[in-house]
């Protein structure tokens, strides 16, 4: 039995919003009995993009997280729906637009806030994985078709194959602790969930300060290394994928011929920009 899964790579999403617009284009003004009632022109974003900016000027990055109905295998909405929300054999969750009428509780049951309430139609609504298109022979949903970077992939595989891919590509789901078993997977989710420590290493040579490329930068806590990298051409470095709230840490910067430097850091819940570290010649 093969089932649909959506894989989204955060490193590739650059917020063009084509998935958001394609979803609007597909559902606004179109009624698909058995699948979905029309999406309102404005207000709903069955496919949405959340933004997270990390760091401080100029050591900053931004990540975008396309989010939508997770088509969970243990979906609270299916349980709450009592027959109004069905789980198809191919993994897709459909809120029946006829049976779900008036069921605000279904919208409220989703822990991911991925079900939208349509006031005019008195109906909970969510992205159907474009099931009506897949059922008529489409190879992938429209968000995948319109994505210019290939950040989205829809694959129909067995659960075993998906489990293998999850390990192989280091995929994650949103809030796994809820145990809803989402079918939407994310790659490079650390850009949303983790933090970085960034800065710039310079070297002072006879009074002239230049960028120090190739400096070894290590972050450790209690003698245990949390990550290490080398500074780039401009002396810039970023240690990414760090867990928030690690607390007291040490950042050590070393470079041959220069005296190493160690800085004490308190790693809290936000990415940390340590600014400029100037290395001086070994005495």
């Amino acid at each position, binding site marked *: 039995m093969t089932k649909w899964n959506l894989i989204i790579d955060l490193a*590739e999403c*650059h*917020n*063009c*919003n*084509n998935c*958001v*617009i*394609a979803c*609007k*284009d*597909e559902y*606004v*003004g*179109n009624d698909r009995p058995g699948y979905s009632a029309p999406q309102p*022109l*404005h207000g709903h*974003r069955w496919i949405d*993009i959340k*933004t997270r*900016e990390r*760091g*401080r*000027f*100029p050591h*900053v*990055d*931004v990540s975008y997280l396309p989010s939508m109905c997770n088509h969970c295998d243990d979906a609270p909405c299916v349980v709450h729906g009592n027959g109004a929300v069905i789980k198809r054999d191919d993994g897709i969750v459909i809120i029946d637009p006829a049976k779900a009428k008036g069921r605000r509780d279904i919208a409220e049951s989703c822990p991911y806030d991925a079900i939208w309430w349509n006031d005019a139609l008195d109906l909970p609504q969510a992205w159907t994985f474009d099931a009506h298109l897949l059922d*008529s022979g489409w190879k992938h949903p*429209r968000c995948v*078709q*319109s994505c*210019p*970077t*290939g950040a989205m992939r829809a694959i129909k595989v067995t659960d075993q194959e998906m489990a293998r891919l999850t390990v192989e590509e280091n995929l994650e789901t949103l809030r796994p602790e809820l145990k809803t078993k989402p079918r939407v997977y994310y790659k490079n989710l650390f850009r949303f969930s983790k933090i970085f420590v960034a800065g710039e290493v*310079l070297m002072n040579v006879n009074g002239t*300060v*230049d*960028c120090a*490329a190739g400096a070894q930068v290590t972050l450790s806590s209690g003698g245990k290394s949390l990550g290490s990298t080398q500074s*780039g*051409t*401009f*002396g*810039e470095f970023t240690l990414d994928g760090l867990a928030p709230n690690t607390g007291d840490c040490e950042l050590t910067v070393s470079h041959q011929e220069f005296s190493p430097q160690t800085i004490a850091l308190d790693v809290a819940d936000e990415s940390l920009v340590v600014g400029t570290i100037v290395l001086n010649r070994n005495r």
Partner: protein
Amino acid sequence: MMFSFVLWCLYPALKLYSLRSDRVRALVAEKNFVVQIQVKDCSRGRWYQFENGRVTSGRMLRGDVDVGVRFKTARLGTKILVNMCSGMFHLAHPILRPFLDPLAVVNAVKNFAMEVDGEDELTLHFTDLMNAMLTHHWDQGFALPNDEVRYVNQTNGGPVFVYVKNGRIIRITPIEFDDDDADPWTIEARGRQFTPPRRTTLAPHGLASKSLIYSKKRLLHPLKRIDFDPTGERNPQNRGTSGYERISWDEALDLAAGEIKRINREHGHGAIFNSHSSHHTWGNIGYYLSSNIRFMNAIGCTKMVLNPDSWEGWFWGASHHYGYTMRMGIAEPYGQVEDCLKEAEMIVFWASDPESTCGSYAAFEGTVRRQWARQLGIKMVHIDPYKNETANWLGGKWIPIIPGTGPALAHAIAYVWITDDLYDKDYVEQRTTGFEKYRAYLLGEDDGIPKSPQWQEPETGVKAHIVRALAREWGSKKTYLSCGGKGVGFGGANRAATGAQWARSMVCLMAMQGLGKPGINFGNLTAGTPVDMQFYFPGYADGGISGDMEGTGDPVQNYQRMPHLISINTSNQKIPRLRIPEAILDGETEGYPTDPKSLEGQFQRFSYPSAGHSRIKMMYKYGGSHFGTTMESNRLAIAYRSDSLEFVLNQSIWDEGEARFADLILPACTNFERTDIGEWASSGGYGHHNFNQLNHRVITLQHKCIEPLGESKSDFQIFLELSKRLGLSAYFGEAKTEIQWCREQFLSSDISKSISWKNFLKKGYYVVPPENNQANRAPTSMRWFAEGRKKDVPEPSPLPAEYGEEYLRGLQTQSGKFEFEPQSLKRFDQDPERPPLNRYIPAWEGRQTKDIYRRYPLQLITPHPRFSFHTNGDGKDSVINDIEHHRSLIDGHYFWIARLNPLDAEARDILERDLVRLYNDRGSVICAAMLSERVTPGVVHSYESSAEYQPVGEPGKSPDIGGCVNILTPKRHMTPNTSASAPNSCLIQIEKCARETIQP
């Protein structure tokens, strides 16, 4: 004998088609009239009478005819009509397709050997009837099993499939190729093979088309301003505030045609002014350079001169060093994708965000190529006041810079190259002139100030050590410079007071590094793919049906291929786009032309009014984009309300921008509601081979997917209806409908040798096979120059006379070499802000202008927008509004977004998504604040080109909540002797703003 037989054939054909074709039957029944086709000397002929839906015919010539068609000889009549009349029987014998020989018709008409007379109303009706028979079997679209029909169309952001059911558009998608479509090209680089996917990409504004087509802001009926009385009080002072009343098309067209006649009669030459946007809805027939120009040339008008808005610094600056005036100062774009992937070690993006600006019309075609570059480990650097999407996504070093100071950074990079001996001395020696003077300037030998990294630091905000590291890396690695969104050209930095300096410094840097050598070139993988450059299909600036000999590429490209009548505007009067308000309010202004022929063309000042011409009294405006794209746009609102304009007509699709400043609004339909033809991203002479930004050349028959909404009509049809009232209909339309013009374009191009008209009509697109034979691929740009050979890239410019000594030898400059101190500027030398040597002159509005900076301490930059195509796609209730990085919905209104650094926000007590007032002496705009560390402190980032202009009080004198941030930007030209805009040199202040203070 033959002629008589041919004429007889038409009679049973009419009867047969009346039975088979609803359209023919309706036209036959619509009017009672008599047509007579004959030889001039009355020796032979035949009449056809249409009465209450019945057709009769006879041989004996009669005198009571309504439409007369006369040929000089029977032989000519036979030649023109034989294939049409015999082909009429194709219903019985499908092999006999009816057609008219267009060249024979045009020749006969031009030589007065064929004449048609009668009232335009009836002659046009008769040709409509003939055309309905000629095109009866022309079925458009691809029927799908589920009662949907899949059509094809084209947007400013890519070609699309359009799925239609029961006359309504269901969805609009990019195109996925089928097995019959050509396979793409492959590039081998560093042991790997790269092939683009078999599909087209689509920009967000193209994908949002359905919401734009069915927008509630569509103009569906002709409208007259309620207090405008053409025979009495015109109340021009109320433009922009009065309401409208619905009138019939007949009333509207009579009013428009009546005013055209009256204005010409009362004021004379030049009194009618035609103003339009720089772009349009796609299609070679409906484009503003096609139908619009044909009509305007036919009635005679004052034309608007488009300044090169997106190219300013390149055209007015860079071109003097190395030519390329035909490309507005942008270097030739060939072969760079392959060369970059094979050879380059680094790409420096400078004022360049291709993931946001999509080249020109090229959607995300370059995206996959930039991913390849990333996979190959090519280093990336991004210089921009804002950490743009390309920088964020592609990765690499972001170097923030104070807006308007780019040339200072460039000089310092060149300084390091000289002091560290990191430039290509052989190249400089052999291929350039004037370097010694530039070197002396950089080292401070002529003014005592070395242009060192330390020197530039207070100007640019870029630390000296960063400059040294960048210069050393650049000087020791084969580097592509991506200066501007398209890789070379465009870029916010070139639309500033220092824009010409910046573009000049970009080309000077590349000349020092050996421009054209392997891995050393302009580009960011947006342009220069190995598509077939020889396969001919007309681009939009080839003029479509305009026949325009002066303002389009028609005489160069298509006149000899597509038989049609030429058109020429007889008025010499011109108005620079940026000085329209002055022309209206002051009655005089001046400008410098965007003349691409030579380096000197741009120096030829012209003034308005032209000698002996009337000042403009009527504006025929095409669309409503100018508030969003005109600097200091309040001027325009005030000008519209002036009584010096007696009549303002706007032909627009949507109720937006300037449309509501018109006395009469004619509702045009979108390109999805008319038949048209066009190639993706192909702009003809406005960007020769512009399609080489694409992974696949895609030529489309732009189907009429749905009927025009409401009473809207295609631009072609509106002009035809007006022509009818001016006796011009035969001249304007040449008795062809839009789809017949599409076929003429088809026949004029190489596509007619590759796919049948019938299949093209049905499928709607054709993918031009790429050039996979390495020997036929276009060579890499400037390689010929670097190697001292004759020019070998496939572009027809510069013009022969522009080569100093030998044709195809050297550049367009006087010396044929790259000139660090251009001879053209030395000879001109009237412009104190454009000196021959590219010295750094701080912006006339920026952090250095202390008196302004004290009051307005924030620099506003207004890059080209990400989600809309200028005003196209923005506003008008489209789904683009819902993109949270485009507009922000606050209290029921979609506010434009202004981005600022949290430090600047905190100092002003501004929180995320607060309403803020952006203001300076020129006006104020209310936006939604977006706080971001990606913005350099002291800078405000807000895209240009809001489609909505919504003043809360008196137009031109009150705050705007639509988002026209160009209200704030200066109207001053970049330098005194140019017509260049410089919106990115703009100082403002921001304050928090309560919603209730701006209630309209």
